[in-house]
């Protein structure tokens, strides 16, 4: 088989991620369309799609735990309902605020103010740490009441669900750490917008997940 050299009928140049702002391109539809796979807009879409799919997997994980909890609570009479520690409401408030600060970082990114991004990311990570600290205090409050992991199944699920959410949030903190590191040289970072958008989406989902878990712990007794 001989090979001939063809001329490309359509050429896409590398988007101007080296120093420029976001590239204005027509909206990208799945499969086809003329915007290229490496434009910032396409990257943002791809990363956000990735987070949405990941959210699906995480939902299944917590759905399985929920169904185990519901079934277990009806299995025998060793289920001892308890009031959730009040500090969880403080941690909820902290987490909600942290979503707004991360949204602040996203706004600064759109404005091209990378110092501002770093500042807001710092704030978000700090609030995330406060949230996790509150969760630990919640554990302490519970254990002071004599409720330990293996005391009864209601307690087991409390520790399990809060730890599960905490670990996922820790993953979000790692993402923030990555953003914070890379933002020092944003012009050499092709996926900067995409990563920040994705991290923000994930972080907001952590809020929703937490409120769900709090509701479950408070009302499924």
């Amino acid at each position: 088989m001989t090979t001939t050299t063809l001329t490309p009928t359509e050429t896409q140049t590398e988007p101007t991620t080296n120093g420029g702002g976001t590239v204005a391109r027509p909206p990208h539809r799945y499969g086809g369309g003329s915007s290229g796979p490496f434009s910032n807009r396409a990257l943002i879409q791809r990363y956000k799609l990735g987070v949405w799919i990941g959210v699906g997997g995480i939902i299944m994980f917590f759905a399985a735990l929920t169904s185990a909890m519901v079934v277990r609570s009806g299995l025998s009479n060793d289920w001892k309902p308890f009031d959730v520690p009040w500090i969880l409401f403080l941690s909820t408030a902290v987490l909600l605020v942290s979503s707004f600060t991360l949204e602040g970082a996203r706004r600064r990114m759109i404005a091209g103010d990378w110092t501002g991004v770093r500042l807001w990311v710092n704030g978000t990570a700090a609030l995330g740490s406060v949230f996790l600290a509150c969760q630990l205090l919640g554990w302490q409050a519970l254990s002071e009441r004599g409720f330990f992991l293996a005391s009864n199944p209601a307690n087991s699920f409390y520790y399990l669900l809060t730890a599960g959410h905490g670990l996922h949030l820790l993953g979000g903190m790692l993402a923030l750490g990555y953003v914070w590191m890379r933002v020092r040289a944003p012009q050499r970072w092709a996926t900067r917008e995409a990563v920040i958008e994705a991290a923000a989406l994930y972080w907001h989902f952590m809020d929703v997940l937490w409120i769900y878990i709090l509701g479950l712990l408070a009302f499924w007794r």
Partner: protein
Amino acid sequence: MTEVELSPEVSEYTEVHRHPEPKTFISKWIFSVDHKVIGIQYLLLAVVAAFVGMGLSLLVRLRLVWPEKSFAILGDLFPVGAPDGVMTPEFYLAMLTMHGTIMVFMVLTTAPQGGFGNYFLPIQIGAADMAFPTLNMLSFWTTFVSFSFLMAAFFVEGGAPMAGWTGYPPLSAVPEAAVQGIGQDLWIVSIAFFCIASLLAALNFIVTTLDMRAKGLTMMRLPLTVWTWFVTAILGLLAFGVLLAAGVLLLMDRNLGTSFFVPGGLVVSDKAIDHSGGSPILWQHLFWFFGHPEVYIAILPGMGVTSHLLATFARKQVYGYKAMVYAVAAIGILGFVVWGHHMFVSGMSPYSAFVFSVLTMCIGVPSAIKTFNWIGTLWGGRIRFTSPMLYSIGFVSLFVSGGLSGIFLGQPTIDLYFHDTYFVVAHFHLIMGVAAIFGMFAGVAFWFPKMFGRWMDESLGKIHFWCTFVGVYAIFGPMHYLGMLPHPRRYAEFTGVDYLQTGGAGDLHYFITVAAMFTITVQFLFLFNFVKSIFAGKPCTEANPWEATTLEWTIPSPPPHDNFGGKVPHVYRGSYDFSLPGAKRDFAMQCNKDEAVYGGAAAGD
């Protein structure tokens, strides 16, 4: 960077950004982010695992027919499990457990999806790589860690776990039970890592399929291989999270004193167990909610490869392409609502059993559609009996044989009798084990020239096919009969029990063991052919030696870094345009414009 020559079949293409090639050995072959290298890594892991798993099945068969015999090498390797080389019943169960776990997770889940899917999904959709290459690398290495943990379970105190690949509590949840030690913990940790790896991989596959397709490659033009990898990824995404949750609960029951799965009042080895209120059935629900989709995770890619190859080698369009896509989707959806049929004997309300039974029967419909369409694809075709084609036809045969017994087992009344017998062993080995393995054989034989730029030995391939095909039927065919006797499964020994010797059962077990030894020996022929051909096979210089239609056949063999070298071919037609009326050739590649197919400027010459 060397220029990549696309085949002249490509009518038009788009130029995109190219990625630099990795420089060092480590970044190129070990911690590679190239989907092709990762695909081969997955395949190699699966090959190693398959041979380990096969060795374990041999031990299982040997123990069944010669329970008293001493194997000196076992005595050296496992002084506790096989003192003086004689396998204990506990050792038998451990080997059974590890065989199942290794085969289901490390072979049937990794090779079809992680191996072939990784290698060919991006190329078949015209992409340079997966959507998230680094994540892809992490998936593989997490799988590798998982495999290492599983292997370590052989060598820790107490030996490998023996609760079955399903890990049923209380045996799996109570460390005091039997001789089990840390092996069961390693098993759970291994499965947990595997879940995480599979979730990351599933995410990657889904985004890649949705977001990275070449211009013109609509969803309904995708090769059926891509469709099955895509649906498999969705199943993995929704199923592995549940198994992960179950695994965490089980690990807590074992080590942290919780009682999710351990009932109260349990006495193990004359010792009361300090747990209360849990339910082993809860584990079964969680496990099988994962476990049933897992069956389709193993078999769907094999279905995709079979559809793909039957069309290619029968030189016909896939009969009922859309029906095939909808059938795959239907199997995927129904796969999530039938888990209860694994638990008919566990104790279940007859009403639930009825619902699960009816839903299970429903899966027969899309399965029958697929089988019908495979035969329709073959019907009247000009069949080329190459070795990949033989494996694909073998897949159809095994799928039908294994599937029919599934209709029996889906009835609660019949399942009550069959469930703990060899009938079930025969059923799931034929449909999930061997059929899926034949899909892999087909994939290897078909894509080998593309992956390595060399041919596998065709005669050896055909000999291997026939020997394996006859061999697996010789192993699993008689098991149906054993199951009807009924011979219970998971028993370490049948000799010395009179009622189990009736009906020629003893001789049949002997026959099955001999057949297994024969079939296992033949697999070394395949391994020899595979390894030899990588280094010394006949070179394949053509881009499209099989005269196939999909995009992987437009690039050089083996594919260069970045696959298309920064050029994404445009797609103009579906995946299986064989024998188009009025066309100049009996196939039209997806990147051929109509002018190239029917006349005007000749393509390819």
